[in-house]
């Protein structure tokens, strides 16, 4: 009997057992699904907020303002250093004249004109390679020590805070997924335990007739994995329904802030990942249960 046949038979047996107790199967799938829908929804929400954050700010930039007296040499030196810095993705030099022009176009020309001379310094706008707060800290410290640099300013500090918050959210969701995943393992463990009790006679008879341990265990593994996968489907359905329900109000909320935003549900990859994760947890629960409850050889 080859590998495929062996598993096809065990799979069919697991499906038969699932189908023979439709109510129990449904209830277990609901318990597993509702438990998993929380972290699944958390992930979807985080994805959405992260997309939103990117859309609003682009990548945060760092501005370098040079001293008033900085000359062409200083600008050349900074340019050279920025070109050599690996953590810098791109940069733009904003000359004093250019800055003044921008302000005048912005309607402040009169005020500035009254000053007689251009009070604005040369500036560089730097886009770093990466978004981590550590990187920003490092570059901030580095640029501050360069000659002729008067002031270094991190733009969009709130985006960094948002990133920090997103990181925190990710940890919270992971923790939640871990806890509820553990619950799923326990639920499967118990389902399989009850099943082994119910099927005790059949298991004993099969052993008397020459059934090997893997032969007896395989259907339980499949059962646990299938039950987990069904729960994963319920979780997905729950998340999808929530997104459908919350999408329009979220969009109109965003519109009041002048933003265009639509809540999006899990994509194909995320969906498959959730189902696979649930199936894995089901398999784990059944494996532990089988190890625990089929260990002793009665016959």
């Amino acid at each position, binding site marked *: *009997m080859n590998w495929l*046949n*062996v598993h096809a038979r065990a799979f069919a047996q697991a499906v038969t057992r699932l189908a023979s107790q439709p109510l129990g199967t449904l209830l277990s799938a609901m318990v597993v699904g509702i438990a998993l829908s929380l972290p699944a929804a958390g992930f979807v929400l985080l994805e959405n907020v992260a997309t939103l954050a990117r859309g609003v700010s682009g990548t945060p930039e760092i501005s370098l303002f040079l001293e008033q007296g900085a000359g062409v040499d200083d600008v050349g030196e900074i340019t050279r250093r920025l070109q050599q810095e690996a953590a810098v993705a791109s940069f733009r030099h904003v000359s004093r004249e250019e800055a003044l022009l921008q302000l005048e176009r912005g309607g402040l020309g009169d005020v500035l004109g009254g000053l007689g001379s251009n009070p604005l310094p040369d500036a560089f706008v730097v886009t770093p390679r990466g978004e981590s707060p550590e990187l920003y800290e490092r570059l901030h410290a580095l640029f501050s020590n360069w000659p002729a640099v008067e002031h270094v300013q991190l733009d969009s500090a709130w985006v960094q805070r948002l990133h920090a918050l997103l990181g925190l959210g990710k940890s919270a969701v992971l923790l939640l997924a871990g806890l509820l995943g553990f619950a799923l393992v326990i639920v499967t463990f118990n389902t399989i335990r009850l099943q082994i009790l119910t099927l005790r006679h059949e298991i004993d*008879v099969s052993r008397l*007739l020459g059934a*090997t341990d893997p*032969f007896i265990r395989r259907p339980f593994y499949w059962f646990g994995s299938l039950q987990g996968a069904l729960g994963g489907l319920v979780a997905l359905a729950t998340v999808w329904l929530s997104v459908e329900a919350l999408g329009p109000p979220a969009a109109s909320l965003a519109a009041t802030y002048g933003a265009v935003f639509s809540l999006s549900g899990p994509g194909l990859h995320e969906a498959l990942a959730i189902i696979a994760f649930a199936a894995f947890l089901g398999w784990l629960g059944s494996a532990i249960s089988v190890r625990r409850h089929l260990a002793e050889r009665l016959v």
Partner: protein
Amino acid sequence: MINFEQVVKSYPGGYTALAGVSFEIRHGELVVLSGHSGAGKSTLLKMIAAIERPSSGSVKINGQDISHLKPTAIPYLRRSLGLVLQESRLLFDRSVAENVMLPLVITGHPPRDAAKRVVAALERVGLGGRDREMPAGLSGGEQQRVAIARAIVNRPSILIADEPTAHLDSAYADEIAKLFKSFNEAGVTVLVSTHDDKLFAEYRPSRLVLGKGLLIGAAAS
């Protein structure tokens, strides 16, 4: 073919069910094992299928010592035997055919050939055409015959039966005995235990008689 050497079996709790039993069964023999209730008949038969392990001594089948068989090797030993235990041990949520099919499912027999073998085995025990019925709807004797069909469906070379006629009236019991004789005539080594000394008398079988865990009588046919 089957060799017991000084086999002792003490159950946990200290009761000694077999107190040093030695005998040999040759290929193709029909052997009747008798003895009073509690003499150790079931214990002896269970040892051949490694359901119980000897406390000391050795049990050999075809020269292989099975007293120290690795757990993973036990299923393969059992597949080479036909086993009818004292309790019929049918699955009552499965049809007659599914019960008889079980050993073939376990060995991964191709389904179409398995179905043919099931039909043949049921005909052999006189239950042809009853394959779709449920065991609960059968009489005790018929259930016992389903168990026998299940034991022979794998075409074993050794058939072990523990009081297959225990709950049957004598007419039924004689028919079962005749069945075992016919398997034996087809070349199967048959070892069957019974309370009833007269049961197999007309076939002049070899005899093993147990009393309080000891062999108190043996006769070759």
